[in-house]
């Protein structure tokens, strides 16, 4: 009876089941916690790796954005005056934290560096990308401007342009030629044959070309058409005026100012060895009474009509109200023509060949106090901060 009473007092439990169950539970719990801890650590590491990569890519995007913003203005003449100062930088839309499109939690900030000090031709920019979890990466790039360029062998900066082509003996070639060469430089990139600022204007030019004339305009291929004609972010008309103003403010020589009118006889407007800036103030016609040649920059404040033989190396800028370039003689231009309107009526032959060396020549005319032509910004060096 005492035994029975004693067993009843323990609640009917026998053996060590509870202890065993607790031990088993403890073991399972320990394993579980260890597993979770390990997995959680791995997840954290992977997440940090992912956000770190996101931040790095955001920083890269920032650099691309900044360089494109500079080139979208048509290029840079001097970093000091056009980029590496607070107001210019803000005008480019840089300096503030920008959000990656479609990724609201990933940002980048791009700034220019004052150390190393920027110069007219080189500067450093730094881009910091930020992603969730305080991930941050910084990349620096050294930028440079190396040589002037033109969007096309013939560039039309105005909107609402008109174009007219008569005859089939003309060639507008955006492939890159050395000065005086008859074939493009092997391996060079080249540019468009004819460039505009908008697709509408490009369509206008293409529409003005007959089927036989389409292949007369060569250069960087444009999808869906034979002629190398397309829109491009080159200098605006306002900037063109600014370039002309700066050019005319240069010492004389190399600036040679002449009244508009007829240019007759054998006229030399600079040579490759001694290029110059020639400025015709008014409508100008180069008559077919002689052989004219020139080198450097030819600016016409009016319409330019070429009726005779002209060999020019460098850049021709045609401004003014008439703004027509007419070719009826034998004309060869190495470099580029920037004109507000375009009318090619070809009786003899005309060849406009894009030539980056010719543009470089035009931008380094002896006696200039500064480069005159905008140049594409290029990345010269890349480093991680």
């Amino acid at each position: 009876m005492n035994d029975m009473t004693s067993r009843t007092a323990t609640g009917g439990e026998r053996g060590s089941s509870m202890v065993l169950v607790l031990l088993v539970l403890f073991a399972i719990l320990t394993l579980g916690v260890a597993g979770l801890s390990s997995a959680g650590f791995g997840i954290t590491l992977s997440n940090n790796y992912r956000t770190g990569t996101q931040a790095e890519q955001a920083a890269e995007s920032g650099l691309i954005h900044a360089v494109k913003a500079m080139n979208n203005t048509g290029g840079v003449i001097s970093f000091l005056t056009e980029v590496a100062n607070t107001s210019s930088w803000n005008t480019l839309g840089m300096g503030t934290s920008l959000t990656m499109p479609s990724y609201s939690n990933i940002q980048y900030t791009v700034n220019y560096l004052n150390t190393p000090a920027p110069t007219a031709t080189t500067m450093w920019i730094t881009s910091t990308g930020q992603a969730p979890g305080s991930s941050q990466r910084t990349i620096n790039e050294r930028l440079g401007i190396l040589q002037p360029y033109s969007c096309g062998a013939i560039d039309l900066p105005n909107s609402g342009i008109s174009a007219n082509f008569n005859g089939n003996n003309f060639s507008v070639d955006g492939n890159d030629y050395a000065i005086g060469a008859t074939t493009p430089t092997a391996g060079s990139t080249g540019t468009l044959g004819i460039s505009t600022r908008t697709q509408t204007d490009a369509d206008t030019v293409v529409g003005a070309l007959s089927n036989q004339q389409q292949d007369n305009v060569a250069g960087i291929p444009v999808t869906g058409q034979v002629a190398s004609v397309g829109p491009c972010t080159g200098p605006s008309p306002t900037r063109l005026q600014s370039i002309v103003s700066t050019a005319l403010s240069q010492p004389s020589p190399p600036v040679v100012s002449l009244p508009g009118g007829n240019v007759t006889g054998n006229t030399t407007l600079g040579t490759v060895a001694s290029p110059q800036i020639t400025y015709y103030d008014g409508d100008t016609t180069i008559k077919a009474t002689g052989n004219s040649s020139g080198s450097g920059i030819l600016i016409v404040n009016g319409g330019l009509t070429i009726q005779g033989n002209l060999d020019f190396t460098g850049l021709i800028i045609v401004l003014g109200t008439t703004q027509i370039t007419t070719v009826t003689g034998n004309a060869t231009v190495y470099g580029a023509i920037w004109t507000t309107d375009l009318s090619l009526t070809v009786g003899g032959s005309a060849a406009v060949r894009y030539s980056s060396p010719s543009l470089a020549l035009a931008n380094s005319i002896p006696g200039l106090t500064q480069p005159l032509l905008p140049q594409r910004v290029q990345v010269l060096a890349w480093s991680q901060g």
Partner: protein
Amino acid sequence: MTTARSRPLGAAGFTMLELLVATAISLVLGAAGFFFFRAQLMSLTDQSAGLDAIEGSRAALDFMANDIRLAGLKPTGSCATCGAGLSGAQATTITVAWDANSNGTLDANESITYAYNSSSKAVTRTVNGTTTTLISNVPSGGLSFQYLQSDGSAAAMSGSPATVTTPANVTTVLVTVQVQAAKATSPWNTTISSRVTLRNRASALARL
């Protein structure tokens, strides 16, 4: 005595047979539990070691990639002694260099060599004569470099051991690291690769 031996109904205790059977069952269950937990524990250890190996190899790869990417960097635009920024480019060895302090010349501590040490089974990093271990437990053949040109083709190699003939033509390095999980019960290797673009090559800089 007779009264004392008699037991109340339902409290009769265990017979020897019952005890033996119960002990046997307990032993079987206990053994099953032991092996189950041991297997789980080993699996956990393996996974942890594998994770360590993956993270270690990834960290080592990133470390190497960050250096290789900078090969040939010339912050001032000129560095006569920097060369191609890449030298001794072999299958298991690479030396990269760049002008880190922007002084226009290549200093002794601006050249880094990564190599495989077969005796210690480790990837080593040597800077200015000082060698440190980047990651251990790398099996034989666990570090390899492949050198590619801008068109994607393999860079020409010559000599013995084979070395890239023209390092300046190399624009991308394919780095592969294999690490053996240190505490795994059976050998378990993790392999990770990365295509590293030499960002200061003209082809990479002209991406815009």
